[in-house]
């Protein structure tokens, strides 16, 4: 298969204020079963043979579980298939097609070079509460701390978030609500997350604001590009947890005990 690629180039290392531009490349004789990243690898090999600067892009596991790859293919984060960029295959495109490849577009994700962006903002949101501080020890006797199948399902549906940031790139407001909502839903539903339930959601929401992410206006675009198909129900959960945590802080200690 042959394709024309319009690839975003930015920061060749000489000018840090460079605005960036599209550069056109032709790729020929691509195996339909090659992944999008493998196709870019072939292009990069050619570029390095030609002693030209290769195209920078993020990738790691290449099996759709790590969340490192972060291409915007034809305007859609991760491309047309609602899977990660590395799981997008060239057979999903039409032979001879022109494909536009861009980095994630969000002011919270500054471009490092070409298609690679700095998603440190998401890491800092995690640092603000997306963890449990206590060592929970070995697995307890199940009946001593029951978790109903419904809760477990909900928590695991949120826990599959790989933190790729496609939700931020898809959101017209550049919001990280789906990401943060998934983390809060995951941890706040399970017993291990309970001691830090309130401080977690407050800390993460405040960090999200401090990073400059936008807010949710319930468009639902994030969920439509999420390779893990996380539902915007997690945003409802985030809103609920935040409101509860904020209103609880105000109430008197003994009242807080009874509402637990």
């Amino acid at each position, binding site marked *: 298969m042959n394709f024309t690629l319009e690839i975003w180039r930015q920061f060749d290392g000489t000018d840090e204020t460079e605005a960036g531009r599209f550069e056109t490349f032709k790729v020929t004789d691509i195996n339909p079963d090659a992944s999008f990243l493998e196709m870019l690898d072939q292009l990069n090999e050619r570029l390095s043979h030609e002693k030209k600067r290769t195209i920078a892009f993020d990738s790691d596991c290449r099996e759709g579980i790590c969340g490192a790859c972060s291409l915007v293919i034809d305007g859609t984060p991760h491309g047309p298939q609602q899977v990660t960029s590395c799981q997008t295959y060239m057979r999903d495109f039409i032979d001879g097609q022109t494909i536009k490849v*861009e980095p994630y577009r969000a*002011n919270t994700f500054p471009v490092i070079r070409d298609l690679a962006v700095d998603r440190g903002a998401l890491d800092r949101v995690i640092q603000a509460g997306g963890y449990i501080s206590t060592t929970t020890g070995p697995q307890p006797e199940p009946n001593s701390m029951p978790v109903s199948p419904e809760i477990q399902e909900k928590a695991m549906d949120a826990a599959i978030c790989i933190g790729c940031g496609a939700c931020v790139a898809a*959101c017209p407001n550049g919001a990280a609500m789906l990401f943060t909502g998934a983390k809060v839903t995951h941890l706040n539903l399970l017993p291990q997350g309970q001691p830090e339930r309130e401080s977690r959601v407050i800390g993460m929401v405040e960090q999200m*604001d401090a990073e400059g992410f936008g807010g949710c206006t*319930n468009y639902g675009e994030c969920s439509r590009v999420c390779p893990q198909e996380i*539902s915007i129900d997690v945003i409802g959960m985030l809103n609920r947890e935040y409101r509860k945590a904020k209103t609880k802080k105000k109430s008197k200690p003994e009242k807080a005990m009874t509402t637990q």
Partner: protein
Amino acid sequence: MIAFWRSSVGKKNIVAVTGAILIGYLILHMLGNLNSAFGPGADEARVDWYAHWLRDFGEPLLPHAFVLWAVRVILLSALVIHITGIVQLTKRNRAARPANFPAKRIGRSFESMAMLGTGVLVLAFIIFHILQFTTLSIHVTPVEEGAVYSNLYYAFQKWYFLVIYVAALLLIGMHLRHGVWSLFQTLGFDNPNRNPKLRHGSTVFVLVLIVGFGAIPVLFFTDVLDPPNAAAVITSSIGAVGSLTGGVA
């Protein structure tokens, strides 16, 4: 509360609550309007009686028109907070994305994209509506303090007022179709099982509002509702009535 307002999620919560207050008022307003459907009545139109009742409500325990003014103050504050919150949130949202790269539209609804536009137009309509029927400052058709039925009747004899009101209803409908569902999501009252019901529920709610509000102007325009009693008209402003007396008789 100030810290709650400062955070984006808190502010959205407050915008949702103020939106809910405004929606609550819309429901009451619609039910009140339906009093017009009882026609001009033998001596006093039911809607006129209702308007007086609203002012007398709570007397002698409360001062005259106290409840009415309390509601007005609540509504105005809710509206101001709602708009301020939205303006601040929108600024934030715009700042979060590079200006030249709007996100590709994948599946967001037209209503959700048009929220700002419909919001501004609805605000303009509310101002016009208050000028027309509350402060009675628009003298295209005869208007008189207290004569609600006759004011409505003459206003909706004009096709352009009918068009303005029906168009405004459709705009409010669009705003609320996304707004009502959104409100539950933002307040976190949703859950996965309830979400589709909330979506459809808000569509049904919007249809009820449009029919409930829209019925009155349409009934007046199509003359299904009788003209006001002559007694009410005689006292109304003389110049404007001159051209209409043929219709009144």
